[in-house]
């Protein structure tokens, strides 16, 4: 029994049907972790990108190092680090929040590169024109650069949403009961791993395919040129 549901071991299909509600409960956690981690990655990534592009090397270089470090070390170890080290400094977060924090941190390194590449891809002439028009740096960014960078940035950011979905099972390593962990638990108790694990695979496939399709739809609606900001 799990979450108040019982499994039915009479046949593979009955078993599959009986554990589906449990897996769907895990799926909800998977989606929650994905959305929260993604939002964190988008925000933190923007911050890292801005610091990385700061005129002062004193800011830019350490940021570059942090980004590289986050990108080059495993999510699982970063997760362990947060999970076991934060409490030593009095920060006690629920496992779920620690997990989303780890997802957000790792992916902020990726999204920061997306932001940076998008902004750098705006032709140099645009900066020069803004300078010639005597626009303030803030106005240059807000009215000239960012609107032109957005159409380049959004599709790449979308790809990371799909990646983050696939990385959520790692949170099971710190006892977050997402879909994979539920399946593992069912397997541990019934000694039947094939059905739950295959179901999790199929559910992930559905989730990523749906997300990828939705993103492609969205992408087609995006303007190919600049987006005017109010």
């Amino acid at each position, binding site marked *: 029994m799990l979450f108040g549901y019982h499994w039915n071991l009479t046949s593979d299909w009955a078993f599959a049907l009986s554990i589906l509600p449990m897996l769907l409960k895990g799926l909800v956690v998977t989606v929650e972790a994905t959305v929260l981690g993604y939002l964190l990655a988008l925000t933190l990534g923007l911050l890292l990108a801005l610091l990385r592009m700061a005129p002062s090397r004193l800011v830019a270089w350490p940021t570059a190092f942090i980004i590289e470090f986050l990108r080059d*070390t*495993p999510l699982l*170890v970063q997760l362990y680090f947060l999970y076991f080290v934060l409490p030593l400094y009095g920060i006690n977060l629920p496992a779920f929040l620690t997990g989303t924090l780890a997802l957000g941190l790792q992916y902020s390194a990726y999204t920061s590169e997306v932001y940076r590449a998008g902004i750098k891809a705006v032709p140099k002439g645009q900066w020069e024109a803004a300078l010639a028009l005597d626009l303030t740096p803030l106005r240059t960014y807000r009215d000239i650069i960012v609107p032109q960078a957005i159409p380049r940035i959004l599709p790449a950011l979308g790809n990371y949403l799909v990646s983050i979905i696939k990385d959520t099972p*790692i949170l099971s390593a710190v006892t977050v009961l997402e879909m994979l962990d539920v399946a*593992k638990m069912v397997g541990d108790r019934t000694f039947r791993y094939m059905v739950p*694990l295959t179901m999790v695979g199929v559910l992930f496939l559905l989730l*990523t*395919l749906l997300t990828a399709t939705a993103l492609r739809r969205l992408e087609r609606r995006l303007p190919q040129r600049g987006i005017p900001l109010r």
Partner: protein
Amino acid sequence: MMFAQLLPPLLRGAEITAQITLASTLLGALFAFAAGIGKLSRHRALRWPAVGYIEVFRGTSLLVQLFWLFFALPIIGISLSPLSAGILGLSLNIGAYGAEVVRGALQATARGQREAARALNFTPRQTLWRILLPQALPEMMPPFGNLAVQNLKDSALVSLITLADLTYQAQNLRNITLQTVPILTATLLLYFAMALVLTAAMRWLERRVRYAAGHER
């Protein structure tokens, strides 16, 4: 003093991590070429399995794949050791991503090259091996480099199927000594160092490939 005692087990784990990464990257390259080329085949019998493999392994989580290989397969009589399951899972996963790199680079070769090959009456196979692949290979190397680092990082997941890699050793050591901060810091640094070495190695390989592709006889 503390570090001196902690480091040897971590280094033993790092060695396993390096071995697994190397083996699965090489095996993954094999899968990548087979599936990437297969996806472009005119024959459905080759194209469909390639597409299926790529979609399934890119569409699901690596950890799910590893668990499936390690926990589910024995039930139908196929028992893999943690090492085989780990290497197979990592290489199947990275191979699916690599397949898209191979396919993309092959498709990006100029159409005129295919037409010239046709006009000179090369067979499709000769066209692939003699004309298209040598031109596409250098273009594949930078994304392959990224995938190799990705694979190094992904290899940490094999610790969850009881393989004694760096992450596993770190967790183990942490449980015994409770020296959480130094152990996990050292672990992160070791991964970072390995990633830097791997990146440098892939750059070197890329230069070699570019040279060989441009000047081979």
